[in-house]
């Protein structure tokens, strides 16, 4: 196993001789996306005209199907398949894993008469047209025996239990220190269920060729999807060819496959023709995973100078009865502020709603909404500026583990941001700044998000025309993977971006873990880098061993790559000429990355600081963004343009979190009340004014060979809390119940007589 020390040596990416690394180049696949020619899963051209599938969702939260009448659907025009749990083709039992190396277990569709959540698919229709499939689906009559269901999270907090295999983390004596603390904060914050609302609903196009199935599906993890389908169909995974070239947003919600994948594959097999299946927008809300609600109690015990002595962050959250998942909303706080006496932990309520799961920055995104407001409340109580309070609690080493930080520029983020945003304009007394009927205020919050490196592989070939093609079972969900892999490849091989081809999203390619946990760029990128380094080595050997090469007999340690050439000092030839002559069939090599054995000897995170300015309408209680600015430190930045888009996108998710986003479970039926984009309000153009972000210069040589870290999730972490703190500074109404909709703000304003 490697060591982080191996990563400290200079390499082509860190030396960046052509200057491609960090440059804000246009997206590799950008022209396809702006012309509408990038084919998403439902749009791929199958080998013959497809049949169209449609799913029928359950209308109860928990119970049993007692009868299904499919006669009318079967007699409906164009119908080719009507499946229920009574006649769906045999699949492996849920959770079975015939191949122990499979990353996912079987996940059968229409598996039985049990209903576990409102919206669970209970029947499937395929027809010659989508219109016929939809019409027939709605002719199916289902009778249920309804059973009692747990549907109200806030009413069930008392039943919360310790998650399996977990325990609280206690350091020092929290209870004793808190009791003695001269200044105390003890508040509970609530963040609701949120939905990913990817623009592209889940979709699959499937067809069979003999005993092998090809599926184009919208998923973040190539191997996960391939293995889940193979286990479900009880076939070896090499008989599932999964492709996912373009993905219309994932955000964690497409980290797993859903019934569209299984039923498209089964349907195509049964009909002997391609089948396409997509979820409707309503099914996306009702039948895919969501971010669970969190009720978070925060207790802070401080000295009068602001130093924290006691610190407790305790989360209660929920998951589906049969799909264990813990939203680790307290974990981030273990690495953020110094305090000798600490308590953090989680409790879980089991509910009868769809499975909870990861959504952009699981843990931090909801967790930071509480502590970063509690710190604001403490700052006010102490009469200390909220930035100064953070500075006084900045740890020298990781506050829980005592490990050194790989690099930590949180203080620099705070100071740079305060200056760039104009924090000195803020009046610390709330409710003092008026603009007509608006009260105006500013707030800030910190951002922290872990950095991860997972094992990955990549393959790269060079052809006789000098084209370098990188292939990886990786995905680009809008994050910029295609582009940064092209930059890494071009810089490492010393060729132009135009000479590089990137091919992703194919289960036949060397595997990478996919997109998630903001590990994508570091993980896939490092494997790509290693593959390119191996290609350099192979080409150097090729040239030195070829009597017809000007490099013949040279010393391989002096070989350089640049301007499309391979050279030793002034002896050089083009890569294309070398390959065309010495290896006309091309040269292909692979490379891989694994986490360093000692990487976890360091506390390694990405950091940032958010600054927000809002106006609060004193008549309606409406909150409008006026300005938002973020400063982030996340290792070496590979592409200034796409990285900035990632963090500003995350910040806007924070605005939605603070002001509009949240779902509510109907206590009668277990359905989500907000089941479309008119009910679940994500930010739109009109909501976002004057929002920008910058990155601090950084390289984290403990992270990976390139010193890069993730940026996809950092931007949302803490962003909503900055907005909430700005609302308080604007009008003096302290809300602890997200989202901060006009009804809640107005109630607060009226209580203050404003």
């Amino acid at each position, binding site marked *: 196993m490697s060591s982080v020390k191996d990563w400290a040596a200079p390499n082509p990416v860190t030396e960046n001789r052509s200057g491609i690394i960090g440059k*804000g180049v*246009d*997206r590799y*696949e*950008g*022209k*396809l*996306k*702006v*012309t*509408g*020619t*990038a*084919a*998403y899963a*439902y*749009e791929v*051209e199958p080998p013959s005209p497809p049949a169209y599938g449609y799913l029928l969702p359950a209308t109860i939260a928990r119970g049993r199907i007692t009868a299904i009448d499919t006669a009318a659907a079967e007699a409906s025009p164009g119908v080719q398949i009507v499946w229920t749990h009574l006649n769906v083709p045999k699949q492996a039992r849920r959770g079975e894993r015939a191949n122990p190396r499979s990353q996912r277990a079987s996940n059968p569709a229409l598996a039985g008469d049990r209903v576990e959540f409102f919206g669970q698919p209970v029947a499937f229709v395929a027809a010659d*047209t*989508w*219109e*016929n499939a939809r*019409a027939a689906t709605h002719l199916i009559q289902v009778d249920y025996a309804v059973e009692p269901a747990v549907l109200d999270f806030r009413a069930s907090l008392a039943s919360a239990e310790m998650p399996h295999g977990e325990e609280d983390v206690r350091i020092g004596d929290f209870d004793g220190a808190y009791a003695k603390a001269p200044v105390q904060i003890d508040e509970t914050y609530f963040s609701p269920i949120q939905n*990913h609302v*990817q*623009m*592209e*609903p889940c979709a699959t196009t499937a067809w069979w060729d003999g005993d092998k199935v090809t599926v184009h599906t919208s998923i973040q993890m190539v191997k996960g999807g391939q293995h889940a389908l193979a286990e479900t169909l009880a076939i070896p995974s090499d008989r599932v060819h999964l492709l996912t070239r*373009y993905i*219309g*947003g994932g955000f964690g919600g497409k980290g797993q496959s859903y019934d569209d994948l299984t039923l498209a594959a089964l349907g195509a097999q049964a009909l002997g023709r391609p089948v396409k299946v*997509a979820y*409707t*927008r309503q099914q996306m809300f009702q039948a895919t995973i969501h971010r669970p609600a969190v009720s978070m109690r925060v207790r802070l015990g401080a000295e009068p100078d602001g130093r924290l002595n006691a610190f407790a962050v305790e989360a209660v959250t929920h998951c589906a009865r049969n799909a264990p998942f813990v939203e680790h909303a307290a974990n981030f706080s273990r690495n953020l502020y110094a305090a000798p006496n600490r308590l953090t932990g989680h409790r879980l309520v089991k509910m009868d709603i769809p499975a909870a799961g990861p959504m952009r920055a699981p843990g931090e995104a909801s967790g930071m909404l509480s502590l970063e407001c509690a710190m604001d409340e403490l700052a006010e109580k102490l009469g200390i500026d909220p930035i100064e309070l953070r500075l006084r609690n900045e740890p020298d080493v990781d506050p829980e583990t005592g490990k050194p930080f790989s690099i930590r520029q949180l203080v620099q983020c705070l100071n740079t941001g305060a200056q760039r945003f104009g924090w000195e304009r803020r009046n610390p007394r709330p409710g003092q700044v008026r603009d007509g009927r608006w009260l105006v205020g500013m707030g800030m919050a910190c951002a922290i998000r872990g950095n991860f490196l997972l094992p990955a592989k990549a393959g790269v070939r060079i052809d006789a025309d000098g084209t370098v093609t990188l292939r990886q079972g990786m995905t680009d*969900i*809008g*994050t*910029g993977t295609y582009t940064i892999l092209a930059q890494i490849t071009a810089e490492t091989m010393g060729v132009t971006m135009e000479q590089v081809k990137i091919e992703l999203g194919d289960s036949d390619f060397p595997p990478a873990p996919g997109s998630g946990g903001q590990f994508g760029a570091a993980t896939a990128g490092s494997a790509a880098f290693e593959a390119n380094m191996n290609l350099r080595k192979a080409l150097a050997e090729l040239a030195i061993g070829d009597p017809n090469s000007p490099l013949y007999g040279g010393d391989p340690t002096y070989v350089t790559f640049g301007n499309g050439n391979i050279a030793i000092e002034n002896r050089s030839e083009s890569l294309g000429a070398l390959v065309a002559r010495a290896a006309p069939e091309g040269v292909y090599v692979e490379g891989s990355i694994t986490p360093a054995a000692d990487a976890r000897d360091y506390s390694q995170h990405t950091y940032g600081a958010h600054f927000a300015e809002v106006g609060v309408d004193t008549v309606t209680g409406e909150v409008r963004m006026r300005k938002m600015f973020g400063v982030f430190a996340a290792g070496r930045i590979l592409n200034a*343009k*796409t990285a900035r*888009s*990632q963090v*500003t*996108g*995350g910040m*806007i*998710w924070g605005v939605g979190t603070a002001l509009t986003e949240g779902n509510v479970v109907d206590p009668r039926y277990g359905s989500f009340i907000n089941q*479309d*984009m*008119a009910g679940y309000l*994500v*930010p*739109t*153009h*009109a*909501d*976002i*004014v004057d*929002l*920008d972000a910058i990155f601090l210069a950084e390289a984290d040589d403990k992270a990976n060979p390139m010193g890069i870290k993730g940026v996809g999730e950092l931007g949302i972490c803490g962003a909503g809390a900055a907005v909430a703190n700005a609302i308080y500074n604007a009008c003096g109404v302290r809300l602890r119940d997200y989202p901060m909709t006009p009804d809640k703000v107005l109630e607060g304003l009226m209580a203050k007589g404003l």
Partner: protein
Amino acid sequence: MKTTITVNGQARALDLDPRTSLLDALREHLNLKGSKKGCDHGQCGACTVLVNGERINACLSLAVMHDGHEVTTIEGIGGEANLHPMQQAFLEQDAFQCGYCTPGQICSAVGMLKEAADNWPSQATEDLGAAIALTDAEIRERMSGNICRCSAYPQIIAAIRDVAGEVA
């Protein structure tokens, strides 16, 4: 039901189930898959196309209602070899991430600029008697029917600004 629609300048004769939306006619019958289905309920704007020069949500309209109409989709706005200035600006400003809302955003932006040039007011218009000044607030208001969950909103406004020029 027989319908003829002029799509991107070409008359296309169709024989459609009358329940077929304009969006599905484009995607499933004319192989023009650039217009996207994000919600099928007129809430997200990913299916925005121009009909007789004006933007509509293609999912909220039945194809047979458009007999004799001229429809412009993203494929008709510009291709890889001849990008429309709006497509070029989206590319340069990084005004998209996953790309799924992008064709709708671009069609919407092109239609929106014409509406403003034709002096159609919006909720952000302060003086209904004066010529429209295309402020950022005007652009944001007029583009709010096009949701981008990746949240490239600042970059989209910058791209539209590149094409529209600065406010006089």
